[in-house]
């Protein structure tokens, strides 16, 4: 860990907020993508079957 001096809290707050928001965006996008893909596969299987 580099020595961030008196600005340590400021820098870590900025990085933490960024990581939380970006990871949340990625997770929500991936979860919804999988859910919708599964729903469509089920619907098409039902129609074809």
């Amino acid at each position: 860990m580099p020595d961030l001096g008196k600005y340590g809290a400021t820098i870590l707050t900025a990085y933490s907020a960024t990581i939380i928001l970006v990871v949340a965006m990625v997770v929500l996008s991936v979860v919804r993508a999988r859910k919708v893909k599964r729903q469509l596969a089920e619907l098409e299987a039902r129609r074809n079957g």
Partner: protein
Amino acid sequence: MSIWEFANPVRFMRLTGKVLPWITALAIGCLAVGLIWGFFFTPEAENFGSTVKIIYIHVPAATLAINAWGLMFVASLIWLIRRHHVSALVARAAAPVGMTLTLVALITGATWGQPMWGTYWEWDPRLTSFLVLLIFYLGYMALWEAIDEPDKAADLTSVLAMVGTVFAVISRYAVNFWNQGLHQGASLSLDKEEHVSDVYYVPLLLTLAGFFFLFLALVLLRTGTEIRARRIKALQLQEVN
């Protein structure tokens, strides 16, 4: 081969299926190298101290936040002129990603502003125009959710995207337009004399590339999801009828 071929949802999905893993790998690689380099191996700045490390997240997030709206503008224009559904869905898919990046830019800017300017917030032209951009993102997303008929929703959100472009441009050039307020000029410039010192420049370019590829990957993934969701609606409607 014409770019309009990708207006076909099947071709679009086939292409994104192939390129998405590569774009994701590029995003992870550029972000990992750029952030580790910038955070651990760059010195303190003379005027900003160690807070200069925030530049590696603030500048890429702010740059992409504005350009995300630029993509929405182009995609919306294509929808209004050529009525390609994929382009309307690209605009819809880009909005939450752009909103998140705008929020990241505002939060990182505020946390940096406190020790540097002595305040988290100031009604400075660039800060204010960014806040307005965030509100436009939220309004755009709400409008998509509020209208059931997809083509009508695409029409109205496209008009909103045209109007919001004014604020996206103002967000980018506010410092140059008004030449006042707390926010300093651009950190990156084609003029080498104007951009940040070389020691910060390369890791900054890497994180910028990383954020760009991450944005692209998310927009492609989310556009694919929107195309599938629309297909589900169409099939459900057929079942009902």
